[in-house]
């Protein structure tokens, strides 16, 4: 069974910032409250990126790169567990770059 998370529908149409301290709907909040729990509880998670006003790289890096760096997920496992959907071809490529470049318990890429 797979779970689909639409960022716009299930989180916010205005995702913004890296850390919780930066304000509501940050990358850290999305990762810790939505994405990481869904990945732990489901064999496959589909993240739909459409519908939001837009994304800053700081949000994306923290939300997705942070899965490896902060939450202990392995990039190789995420390649099978996580699917990204977007009408923008560049967005999934950027996110996979963050996942590949993140080091567990390391500094941000």
């Amino acid at each position, binding site marked *: 069974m797979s779970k689909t998370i639409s960022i716009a529908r299930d989180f916010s149409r205005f995702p913004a910032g890296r850390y919780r301290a930066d304000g509501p709907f940050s990358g850290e909040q999305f990762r810790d409250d939505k994405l990481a729990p869904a990945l732990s509880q489901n064999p496959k998670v589909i993240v739909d990126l459409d519908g939001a006003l837009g994304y*800053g790289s700081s949000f994306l890096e923290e939300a997705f790169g942070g899965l490896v760096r902060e939450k202990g997920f392995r990039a190789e496992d995420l390649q099978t567990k996580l699917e990204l959907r977007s009408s923008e071809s560049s967005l999934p490529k950027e996110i996979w770059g963050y996942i590949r470049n993140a080091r567990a318990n390391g500094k941000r890429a």
Partner: protein
Amino acid sequence: MNNGPAWATWLVPVAQVLGPAIGWIVLIIGWHVISRGNDRRERRKEVRALLNEIRSAILKVEEEAYEYYGLHAQVSQKSARNIKRDLKHLAGMITTLSSLDPKFDLDSLFNEYRQNLTGHDFESAARSERLPNDGLFVEISESAVKLTSAMEKMFEKSYS
């Protein structure tokens, strides 16, 4: 009595049969060549118009970024939203461009541009305004130039 060369005896009936067909073949080939030329000119026009739009959008976002990073975090939320909205619009145009002509694969350069614009401390509550000579402005500008140069090179290679 036929005193002509031997090959003429079979060439004449063959030519009588194939003659009209050859005319049609030449016509079809000609039509195909002209049609391809027209398609190419139309495609060139479409791609050029989209490239011009993309160039303007890149410049617009770059200017918005200068404004955003020159402001303190507390008063720059509106600028941040404008940057994200316009980057999304730009990403859509780049996706459209690569569907018009797959040779325009600009995703990695666009991502570099977006990372320079909205990585680092973008939307950080603790961010301070940057001085006009901050290195980030140079990085933003360089990635914008790389993106537009790559587009123009691809266009020149494909449509000149």
